[in-house]
């Protein structure tokens, strides 16, 4: 097989792995924003918390798989408490209050993480079964990234199934279209919000754990990834997990391939894509289904 073609195939696989991490992160953000109309700027903090909690769990229990399950659940619990304790009060106080509140929380979490885990760099070590490398088409490729791609597809499928085929999914879809109507139908919209917020937290936590072995853990990882997640939401559009999935794959591939073809302009490329999408289809490439 042609060598440059197999190298390209590896880049695509790389881009997919990165896209999956972005998807897990942005799915929660888009879900919360689409339903609750809250732009949760502490979402990056959930991502960071997921990674750091997983670090501690993996250290104490010496088991990456348990960390992969427990850390997102704990982050979900934290976000549940936040929704009940803080965000709920802010619902009828307008957007500015919510943006300031979640932004403030992001700083609190940033300092908290630095206080508990310190400013040093850490990484998560995946178990032997998914670390090391694979030989694919004459190229060496890290096994863990293949795992991330698979994990991303599985979670994406589960979310799609949940949203399209279950009653809860139907309520969430209805919530994106018209909240008041959902409330009018006798559904406890507050409970829906709480659960959505917690689910968003779980997803962000999961993406933090999954990203740990690739991107590392360090103070500032929260804000850095938040920007990418926001871009994914803009490019993909609101309304469904499918839209976020599409947006994440596009940004993941554009970022990775951009580095190969136009190394000087790789960051610019992502913003350029965002600008073009906004001009051509302001509601996002796959968004606006509800409209």
């Amino acid at each position: 097989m042609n060598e440059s073609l197999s190298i390209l195939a590896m880049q695509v696989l790389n881009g997919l792995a990165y896209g999956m991490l972005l998807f897990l992160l942005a799915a929660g953000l888009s879900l919360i924003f689409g339903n609750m109309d809250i732009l949760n700027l502490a979402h990056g903090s959930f991502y960071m918390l997921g990674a750091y909690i997983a670090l501690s769990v993996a250290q104490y229990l010496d088991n990456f798989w348990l960390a992969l399950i427990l850390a997102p659940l704990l982050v979900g619990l934290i976000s549940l408490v936040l929704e009940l304790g803080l965000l709920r009060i802010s619902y009828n106080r307008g957007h500015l209050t919510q943006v300031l509140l979640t932004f403030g929380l992001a700083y609190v979490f940033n300092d908290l993480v630095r206080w508990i885990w310190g400013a040093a760099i850490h990484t998560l070590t995946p178990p032997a079964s998914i670390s090391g490398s694979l030989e694919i088409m004459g190229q060496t490729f890290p096994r863990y990234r293949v795992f991330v791609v698979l994990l991303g597809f599985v979670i994406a499928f589960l979310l799609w199934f949940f949203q399209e085929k279950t009653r809860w999914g139907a309520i969430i879809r209805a919530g994106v279209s018209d909240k008041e109507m959902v409330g009018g139908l006798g559904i406890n919209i507050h409970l829906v919000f709480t659960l959505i917020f917690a689910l968003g937290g779980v997803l962000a936590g999961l993406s933090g754990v999954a990203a740990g072995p690739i991107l590392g853990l360090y103070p500032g990882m929260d804000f850095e990834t938040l920007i990418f997640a926001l871009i994914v939401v803009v490019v993909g559009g609101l309304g469904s997990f499918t839209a976020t999935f599409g947006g994440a794959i596009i940004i993941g591939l554009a970022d990775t391939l951009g580095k190969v073809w136009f190394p000087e302009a790789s960051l610019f490329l992502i913003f350029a894509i965002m600008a073009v999408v906004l001009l051509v289809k302001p509601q996002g490439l796959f968004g606006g289904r509800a409209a």
Partner: protein
Amino acid sequence: MMIKLKSFKIGKILLVIAILGLIILPLVGCGNGGSTNSSSGDNKSGSNATVGSTEPFKVGLIIPKSNVYATLGENLSNGMTMYFDEIGWKAGGREIQLLQEDEENDAQAALRKAKKLVESDKSDVLVGVVNSSIALAIRDYVDQNKVPFLVAHAGAVGLTRAKKSDYVYRISFTNEQVNFPNGKWTYENLGKKVFVIAPDYAAGKEQINGFKKGFTSAGGTIVGEAWPPLGTNDYGSYLQQITKAKPDAVYAFFAGTDAVRFVQQYSEFGLKKKIPLNGSGWLNAEDVRPAQGGAVEGVKGSLYWQLALDTPENKNFVENYKKKFGKEPSGEAVEGYDAARVIAEGLETLKGDSSDKLKVAQAWGDIKFVSPRGPIEFDKENHMIIQNIYLAETQKIDGKLQNKIIATFKNVKDPI
């Protein structure tokens, strides 16, 4: 109506992206601004003291307290605190105070902090700075305002070449100095064809340039270069470029999180087994090795100091540092320790008289001593430190990964 609502929502996200991008990123995690360490708390009032002699001597330290280089800043500050503790925060009959500010990885912000330290806090000298563009911005300020500035980390060559100043001395290194002798060594020991890779910013270019000077003048050929952006998440595409170029060795400069990711991915993509990885010593420095895990075994790097350095001065330093901070020191801790010693000994030779700022700076230039990193002195020509450079390889010794010194290059000057 719905579409309008949606695009309004998107607009809101855009606004937030813009805000995050413009304001927040440079300040990421902007920590505690101006914490002060001073002598053991005895509050001597300087009100009726004679000017110059018994007033506290204030040292303004500018270091990163947030972002990727936060740990470097913390270690620098620890090293300084440790030395001042050893001499009881007194030199030349004066009490020493250490004022700290976050350089925030932003030249404008750091310059503001420098002005604050000098103009409102009345610092006698400035010290520190990790980011080179920040050091250059502060250099212009101190040159105009006659404030002695001891650069304790930033490695831009210009600071002690084209932009050298009567008031600026450098106790750290230049980006070229740490790599230059390694160039010849690489040619003699690893091979004639090398691929170079470093982050795409001034320091990255200078680091590689220092290597190239030594490597090509010995007869080597650069068979490929890659310049990923600073803070790259994913080096996969660059690693595949390296595989394609088939070099005898790879020479890299990465620090902090970049070093962790690059070294890990170098191993994950299977290159470690095929092509030796050499570079500047941040690649396998003490602060990144724990996070790099087994991936760093066999990686080589040249630097002005190594933990494993077997001299009485270094052993003593390492032991005391561990006792005090509960962890092993890094190269930045040594820079901080030496910087504090230069400042204190300078003040000692002037018998505490810091009224003539030029003399304060010139006193630094005459100081030489045996530091934990070996003998050091300043080059009178450019105010740049002359020091040994050590090449260390990470090896598994007694089941633990450690850096072992495999070559020592003595009394290296900045290769102009």
